[in-house]
Every structure is written in structure tokens, then in C-alpha cells.
């Protein structure tokens, strides 16, 4: 079956939903490449005139932001990222193992547990 175009009313609804969905994400991306002077500008700046990657460098090197004359951040993201990876891996492994084993137990033997689910 060939893809038919949507009737225009539904198309408007869909495009509206997509706009509303993407706007905050657009804002996140734009803020990420703004130099510090644009962060809190009044009125808010939509698209930075001088896009920069300094914010990303600052993530892993707290001193990078100082070239704009702004104080560095206190801590690099490296440790937090490693910590997240470590805790999420451990938690996933543990919960999958325990969950799998107890699920087998409950589904194979109809004794106990089923009703309390």
C-alpha cells in the first residue's frame, strides 16, 4: 500500500506536536553552544552569533571556561560519568539477575507470590 499524504488538519496537529516536542531540545542544544556572555542575555538569544564548544571542553577540563573571564567549575564531569556507568551497570546486572531468577521461580512453580503480584 502506498503512503498517502495525511489530510491537512492531521498534518497541522502532527507538525504542532513535533514543534512543541523539539523546541526545548533545540533550546538545550543552542544553550550548549552559547558563550558565557549569551547565557543570561536579556532578551534571550535564540541562536548564538559566536557558537563555541568551550562548554563541552569545560566538562572535562574545569579551567577551560576561564578564557572568557568566568570562574571555572568546581569539578570535572569525568568522575560523575564513571560513577554513573559503574552504578548503572551494577544495578542493571544485579536487578536482571535477581529479577530473572525470581521470575523463573514464580512462573515455573505456581506456589506463592503470584497472588501478591
Amino acid at each position, binding site marked *: *500500500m502506498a503512503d*498517502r499524504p495525511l489530510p491537512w488538519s*492531521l498534518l497541522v496537529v502532527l507538525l504542532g506536536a513535533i514543534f512543541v516536542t*523539539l*523546541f*526545548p531540545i533545540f533550546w538545550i542544544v543552542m544553550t550548549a553552544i552559547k558563550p558565557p556572555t549569551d547565557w543570561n542575555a536579556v532578551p*534571550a538569544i*535564540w541562536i548564538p552569533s559566536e557558537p563555541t564548544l568551550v562548554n563541552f571542553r569545560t566538562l572535562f577540563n574545569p579551567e577551560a571556561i576561564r578564557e572568557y573571564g568566568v570562574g571555572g567549575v568546581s569539578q570535572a564531569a569525568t568522575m560523575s560519568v564513571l560513577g554513573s556507568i559503574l552504578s548503572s551497570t551494577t544495578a542493571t546486572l544485579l536487578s536482571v539477575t535477581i529479577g530473572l531468577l525470581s521470575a523463573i521461580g514464580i512462573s515455573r512453580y505456581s506456589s506463592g507470590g503470584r497472588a501478591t503480584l
Partner: protein
Amino acid sequence: MVLITPLLVAFYMSFTDWAPTRGGLAAARFVGIENYQELLIYDTRFVEAVVRTLLLSAVCLSIEFALGLGLAVLFLRRFRGKAVAFSVVLTPMMVLPVVVGYTFWMLFQSNGPVNQIIELIAGPGSAPEWFRSTPFALAIVVITEVWHWTPLFFLILLSGLNALPENPVRAAVILGASPRQIFWRVVLPMLKPVIVVAFVIRSMEIVKLFDEVFMLTRGGPGTSTETVSLYIYKLAFNDFQLAYGAAAAFLVLLGTLTLVHLLLAPVRDQLLEERR
């Protein structure tokens, strides 16, 4: 043992007046149900937070359900660019709650982009100060929550719709039912278990609503957007009322359990008896 020990300790703690500055838990005075009494009878801030969380949940979940169902029905059609639209609609779910909170905080600043759009359409001076008034602050919380979690409803409902058997629908078509009748009388009743599961998952999540509110309003102005989680957080980590906070947490747990139980009641048999 691993599961139960922390729960038991916290449960005991909720019957004492323990605080971290008073030494070990053993040194704390046993006060019986005083904490619970205080919470339920005298602590209007707690009761208000509970009522507010429930109302917020009801409003958010209804909007999310309506939007999610609408989108899901839309996605049952075939149209060009469907795959792209599908991934776009699902993106909000993948953003961290803290980031969502911070982003919407930026968007709704008094001179932020949303107000710029409003002033462009409705003329200068028409944009509200979102974070200064209670109704607007609550509206932001609802908007943020709906933006963040409608995709989950959409995803669950879409997979539910796709998994429905086609024969009842065909039969209804042959019997001359209108599309509207088919939707309300045939499709929705068959979708009921899926809808209930979606609501259960979301309501367990939304009574824990914390990150977004914390980033957006910190419960303000005053305490007018404070949710239960935020209040308990403030009790435990700003006021160090850990025992009191534990009592509050247990009341919430009890409430959530009851709520989920009630929600599941109409479909429990269907969900459990399906496979013998």
C-alpha cells in the same frame, strides 16, 4: 534480608524522635505514633503537599493520556516521514529529568523564549511572570511533566493498539458501525488492560515527582507547588528531621500501594489468568 533490613530500620526510626545530631539510633527516644499523629492532624503543609501531588497527578495523567492516545491513533495511519516523526515524538522521554527541569526553567523566564513568543503574538506586556504566581507556577509544572512523559503513554498505547486483534473491528465494520462507534465501543474496551497498566506505571512515577519541581520552582512561590517528595526531601536534608521524614515516607508508600492496588483491581484477573 537485604530487602527488608533498611525498611525495618526506617520503620522503627519513624516511631522515634531520632535526628543525626543525637547520636546512634539506639539513643533515640521511642515516641510511638506521635510522628504520624503530627503529620496527619497538625502538619497542614504535609497534607497540602499530598493533596497537591494527587491533583497534579490527576491533571497531568489525564492530559498525557488524551494526548498520547490521540497521537497513537494518528500513528495507526500510514504517511510519509512516519519513522522520523516517531523518533522525534519519543525524544522527550530520553532527556534526564533534571535537564528537563532546568530547560523549562530557562524557557519560562520572564524574558525567556516562551514569553518572547507570547509577546510577539499578543503584544508587549501581555506575558506573565511565570514563577511569581501560584497558578502559573503550577501550570509550568504540568506543562513540563506533560511534555516529558506523554511519549511514554503514546508508546504504550500505540503498541497496545497494534497488538489488538483485527477480527472484532472487521465484524463491526461489516455490521455497519461508524468509525466513531468502533473506536469507543470496540477498540477502547479491548485496550482497557493496556490503558490501566500505562496509568499504573505513570502514577507510581508521578507521585514521586521531584526533579522537575526541584529545578523549576523549589516548591515556590512559598510552598505552593511543593510535592510530597520535595517536602520530605526538605524535612530530611534541610531540617534534618529524619525520623519525621521517615514517617511521612511510610505514609506515602502506604498511599501509593493502596492507589496502585485500586487502579489494578478492574484488570487484575485479566492480567493474571491469561496464561494458565
